[in-house]
């Protein structure tokens, strides 16, 4: 240093050096601070996530291997709103819809609907038959089935499908291996049973059956035939529910005594006031066939297009939406059919002549599990109320993201709560899909964005459609001869549970399940 000082070129003095480096110790203090801070955070994280053994990996990417082999030949029965979504998830979209997506992408580079659709794996199937009682939709289904190259109008189409006016003919066709049933609920059982008897594999939408008796009939037919059956609860593919099961299995929440699930909607479409097609008429709709398995009624466009509003065709909030919530919880807690159910509700907002309540509550008891399952639904308020599993030690909010908060009076976490390591108003665990690991220290902000789909939509740059995965699982199981995640046993539990709530509502009484006799009493 002294030598430097002597250099005539820069003429640095000891004073220069001291003043030049005067603030250097600040960096030392900064380094020490960072060390203390990261050590604290790491301890906190390891104290929670690592000790609980919760190192989550993302769902591995699917390999196309499982889809190889001979193309499966599929028939679709019912091409309404859901039927169209199912076909899209299976890789077939109406060319008009693709035109709309392409235009959207031209207007905004953020419109990824067409890119996402193209990125969806080819499930190696052909649509060989379509069946719908409304001519317009049957023709739309044909157009969609022919779009095997996923092109817009004017693109190369190859028609593989035939229109069947009666489902029995579609099922009898020798060039069909499996059927997707997306009709109103009152048709599900007859179609699934006939398909099973003909040896066709079945994918059927929820609610599985319209009546209790039908649930038994469908279960027997599927089991006797040994076909591969999948019920349309695509929530089975939701990654966060799989992680939720691991959290519950590790007893992180403590003893769970109450589960609260909800439906919150507030728009006509969500309340089943679906559009009435302008071309719908007795000439274009086979009304007699529509009412065949249920009560006779004169032709009604409302009943045909908005069938969920009447008990003759649908299963109400219980079959339509409770089932999704129940199935999500059932795959985590393995609840099965409840011991008892009570329900209440009414037509309080959509007084459009419907029979089916638009506000509905059901409470189910599982005494052998010391647990109550509570469902609350409104079609006239969309205030968000999520799924919550409430345990003695912690509660978990279970959506696409998972958030676990410790309970103020937890026994298990008492020490950590007292030491300030955990706090009842801060999440102790958060899982956000697309992230490699569960995170013990995640900011409220991040959760806010995640819960609104702003975060994980872009992670990895790929959005995955759960319905696509659910159909894919069914097809893979057909090829491998395995049972899918929402098979007939799961479906039976779902159907009976939903019917118990519906019966409790309609008969205004507490309903019990006699497990030994398999009877609702």
């Amino acid at each position, binding site marked *: 240093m002294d030598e430097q000082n002597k250099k005539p070129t*820069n003429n640095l003095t000891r004073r220069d050096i001291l003043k030049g480096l005067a603030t*250097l110790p600040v960096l030392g203090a*900064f380094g020490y601070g960072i060390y203390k801070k990261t050590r604290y955070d790491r301890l906190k994280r390891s104290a929670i996530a690592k000790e609980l053994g919760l190192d989550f990996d993302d769902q591995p990417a699917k390999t196309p291997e499982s889809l190889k082999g001979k193309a499966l030949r599929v028939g679709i029965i019912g091409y309404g709103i859901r039927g169209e979504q199912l076909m899209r998830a299976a890789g077939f979209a109406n060319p008009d819809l693709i035109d709309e997506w392409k235009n959207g992408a031209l207007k905004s580079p953020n419109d990824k609907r067409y890119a996402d659709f193209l990125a969806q794996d080819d499930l190696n199937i052909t649509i060989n038959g379509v069946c719908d009682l409304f001519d317009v939709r049957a023709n739309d289904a044909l157009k969609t089935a022919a779009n095997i190259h996923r092109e817009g109008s004017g693109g190369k189409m190859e028609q593989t499908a035939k229109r069947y006016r009666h489902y029995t003919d579609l099922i009898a066709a020798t060039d069909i291996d499996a059927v997707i049933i997306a009709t109103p609920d009152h048709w599900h059982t007859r179609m699934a049973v006939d398909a099973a008897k003909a040896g066709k594999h079945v994918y059927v939408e929820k609610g599985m059956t319209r009546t209790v008796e039908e649930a038994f009939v469908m279960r027997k037919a599927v089991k006797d035939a040994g076909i591969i059956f999948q019920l349309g609860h695509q929530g089975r593919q939701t990654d966060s529910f799989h992680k939720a099961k691991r959290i519950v299995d590790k007893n992180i929440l403590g003893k769970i005594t109450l589960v609260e699930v909800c439906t919150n909607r507030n728009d006509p479409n969500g309340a089943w006031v679906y559009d009435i097609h302008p071309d719908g008429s007795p000439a274009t709709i086979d009304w007699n066939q529509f009412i065949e398995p249920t009560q006779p009624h004169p032709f009604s466009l409302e009943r045909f297009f908005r069938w969920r509003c009447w008990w003759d065709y649908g299963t109400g909030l219980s079959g339509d939406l409770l089932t999704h919530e129940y199935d999500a919880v059932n795959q985590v807690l393995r609840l099965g059919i409840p011991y008892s159910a009570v329900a209440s509700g009414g037509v309080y907002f959509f007084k459009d002549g419907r029979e089916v309540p638009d506000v509905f509550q059901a409470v189910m008891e599982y005494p052998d599990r010391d647990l109550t399952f509570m469902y609350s639904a409104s079609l006239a308020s969309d205030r968000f109320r999520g799924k919550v599993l409430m345990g003695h030690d912690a509660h978990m909010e279970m959506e696409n993201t998972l958030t676990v908060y410790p309970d103020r009076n937890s026994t298990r976490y008492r020490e950590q709560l007292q030491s300030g390591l955990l706090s009842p108003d801060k999440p102790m665990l958060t899982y956000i899909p697309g992230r490699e690991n569960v995170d013990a220290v995640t900011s409220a902000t991040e959760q806010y964005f995640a819960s609104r789909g702003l975060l994980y939509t872009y992670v990895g740059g790929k959005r995955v459609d759960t319905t696509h995965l659910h159909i894919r699982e069914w097809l893979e199981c057909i090829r491998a001869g395995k049972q899918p995640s929402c098979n007939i046993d799961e479906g039976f539990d779902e159907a009976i549970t939903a019917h118990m709530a519906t019966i409790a509502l309609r008969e205004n009484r507490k309903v019990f399940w006699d497990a030994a006799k398999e009877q609702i009493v």
Partner: protein
Amino acid sequence: MVIIENWMMQKEKYSVLQLTLLVGARVAIGWYCLYEGVIKLITPHWTSMPYLMDSQGFLALFFRNMATNPTLLSIVDFLNIVGLIAVGIGLILGILTRISTVSGILLIGLYALSHPSLVASTYILPSGDHTLWIDKNIVFLFLLLILLVFPTGKIIGLDRILFKKPAKA
């Protein structure tokens, strides 16, 4: 009394108290930037995406477009981290102080533009702030402008060594 050339190359005189406060302010804002940069660097999966998506005001679309373009986003993330750390170290150590100060002004200016504190705006980030028109970013901007006009790097800082003029013969 200390004499220094200011940004207009004019002689500026600081009392010891003035110099102490100016250096203190420089180090404090440097610390703030450095920590903001380092914490982003060591936080797994950190991205500016939520902050950019949260943008409001007349440039909101510009910032949100940054967030939705993965390539651009990764560049923004990188520049943010490197920029904050460089500005922080520059201000604390008083090294390339003027460039550091100007870079800080640009960086914080962008934050201010993406999150203007308007009458009607409510932000998720930063949370718990109550501001109207003038927010933390604007105060920082003024502070950095003051540091630009009243530089101290060549008195207390590595610039003193770096820019030491050769002694006149």
